[in-house]
C-alpha cells in the first residue's frame, strides 16, 4: 500500500545541535505508529517540521503526493494533517463546543463576504457543524461538557478535547504529541479506546508517547528515535526487546 506520509532524509539543526539527522520514515495508511525515545531525541521537532511550524534545512516531506516542505502551517492543516501539542493548545476561554466548531474546515462563515451576502448559507452550515460537533463529543463520551469553558476542565478532559478538535478538522493524518501523559488511568483508557477505533474510519495516527504500556497496547508499529536518528523500527514487541532500545531507554 502507498504510504500516507513519506519523510525523506530530513535534516534540522538548531545552532549546532542536530535535532533531525538525515531522518527518513514512511507512515502507512490507516496505521497507528508510535514514536518513543528519550527527551531531546527530536520527536517533537519531527512533528514541527511535518506541520510547517519549523522550516526544515533539507529533505522532503510528501503527504498524499503533495510536497509539504515549503508550505505554511495552515495550508498543511488544510491538506489534512492535524496535530496536538505537548503543552496543550486550545482556546481555553471559549466553550468546548466553540473549540470544536472552530476546528471545522471550509466554513463559509469564515469569509466576511458570505456572512454579509449569504447569511442563510452560513447559518445552515453552522447548524450542521453544531450537530456534527455534538455527535463527535458523544462519540468520545464527553457530550455533557459541550457548554463548559475549556479552562474549567481537567487536564485529561482537555487532552480529549484537543483530540476531538483534530477529528473535527477532518484530517486523515493525526499527529498526537503525548496524548496520555500526565492523566489518570481511567482517562488514558478512554483516550486509547477512541484512538483504537479510528483507523477503521480511515484515520492514520502518529503518536509520541513516553507511556510505554500505552504505546504497546495501541500501536501497530513503533519507531525508536535518539539524537535525531531512527534507531529501531518494527512491531511493538520486537522494538521493546531490541538491545539498542533497552540500552538507551528502557533500562
Amino acid at each position, binding site marked *: 500500500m502507498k504510504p500516507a506520509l513519506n519523510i525523506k532524509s530530513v535534516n534540522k539543526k538548531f545552532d549546532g545541535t542536530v535535532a533531525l539527522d538525515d531522518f527518513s520514515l514512511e507512515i502507512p495508511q490507516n496505521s497507528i505508529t508510535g514514536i518513543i525515545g528519550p527527551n531531546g531525541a527530536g520527536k517533537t521537532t519531527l512533528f514541527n517540521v511535518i506541520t510547517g511550524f519549523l522550516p526544515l534545512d533539507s529533505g522532503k516531506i510528501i503527504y498524499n503526493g503533495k510536497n509539504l516542505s515549503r508550505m505554511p502551517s495552515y495550508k498543511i492543516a488544510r491538506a489534512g494533517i492535524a496535530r496536538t501539542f505537548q503543552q496543550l493548545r486550545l*482556546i481555553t476561554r471559549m466553550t468546548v463546543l466553540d473549540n470544536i466548531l*472552530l476546528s471545522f474546515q471550509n466554513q463559509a462563515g469564515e469569509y466576511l463576504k458570505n456572512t454579509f451576502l449569504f447569511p442563510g448559507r452560513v447559518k445552515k452550515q453552522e447548524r450542521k457543524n453544531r450537530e456534527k460537533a455534538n455527535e463527535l463529543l458523544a462519540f468520545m463520551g464527553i457530550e455533557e461538557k459541550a457548554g463548559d469553558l475549556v479552562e474549567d476542565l481537567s487536564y485529561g478532559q482537555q487532552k480529549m478535547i484537543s483530540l476531538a478538535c483534530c477529528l473535527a*478538522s477532518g484530517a486523515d493524518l493525526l499527529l498526537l504529541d503525548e496524548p496520555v501523559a500526565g492523566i489518570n488511568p481511567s482517562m488514558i483508557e478512554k483516550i486509547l479506546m477512541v484512538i483504537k477505533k479510528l483507523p477503521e474510519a480511515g484515520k492514520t495516527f502518529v503518536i509520541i508517547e513516553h507511556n510505554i504500556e500505552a504505546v504497546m497496547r495501541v500501536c501497530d508499529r513503533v519507531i525508536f528515535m535518539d539524537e535525531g536518528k531512527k534507531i529501531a523500527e518494527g512491531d511493538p514487541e520486537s522494538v521493546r526487546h531490541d538491545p539498542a532500545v533497552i540500552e538507551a531507554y528502557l533500562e
Partner: protein
Amino acid sequence: MEYLLHILILIGIYVILAVSLNLIVGYSGLLSIAHASFYGVGAYVAALLALKLHSPFLANIICAIILSGLLGAIVGIPSLRIRDDYFAIATFAFQVITFSVMNNWVSFTGGPMGLPGIPRPAIFGWKITTHYDFLIVILVLCIIILWISHKIVTSPFGRVLKAVREDEIFAQAMGKNVASYKVLIFVIGAGMASVAGVMYAYYISFIDPTSFTIMESILIISIVIIGGAGNIWGSVLGAAVLVILPEALRFLGMPSSIAANMRQIIYGALLVIFMLFRPQGFIGEYTFRK
C-alpha cells in the same frame, strides 16, 4: 438643548472610534495605538475633498474609508512578524508619522493652522446644518457600524479572530490563515474609524492636527478597556462614560483652563484603576493579562 445634542454627537463619534478599535484590540488582541491616525485621515480626506473639489458628502465618506482602509493594511502587515508590545510600538510610529504629515505639509493640510471653513454637508439635497441633523446622521452611522461589528464578531469569522487573540499557533494548526485575518480586521477597523473622522470634520467645520495626536489614540484605548475589551456594548458604554465624565467638571464650577488638564488626569487615573482592579472593564471578556 444644543449642549445636550453636542454631547450626544460626541458620544456617537467616540462610539464609532471605540467599537472599531475594539475589533482590533479587544477581539483580535492586536494592541494598536494608531487609531487616532485613521480618525485623522478620515477627517482630512473629507475636509480636503469638500474644500478643494466640493465633492458630495457620501462620496467623501467612501473615499475616506478606502484610503484609511489601505493605510490600515499597511499598519496591519507588521503584525504578522512582530507581536504584543513591539507591535504597539510599530503602530505608535505610524501615529507619529501621520501627525507629522498633518502638521508639516503646510501647503496641503494647512499645517498647525488646520483647515477652516469646511462646508455643511448634504445628502441627496437634504442639508445637514443643525445639531439635530448631525445627531441623526451620526446615529444612523453608529447603528450601521454596530450592526456590521456585531455580525463580524458573532460569525465564524469572529470566532477565528478570538482564536487568533488567544492562541495563534492553535489557530494555524486548525488551518486558519492567521495573517489574512489580522490584516483584514485592521482594514475594517481603520475604515470604520475614518467615518468618525469624516463626521467630526463636517460637524466642527474646522480641523487641525492636535485633534488626532497620540493622546487621542490613548483616549480611544481607554474607552475600549474601561468599557470592556471584546464586547461591543462595552465600547458604547465606555464612550458614554468617558465623554460625560469630564463634562461633569463644568458643573462643579471648574474653570475651563483647569478642566482641560483635569480631563487628561481623569482618563489616566481611570485607566490605572481599571487595569489594577477590573482589567476586563465594565463588561468586557478580554483582559490584557495573560
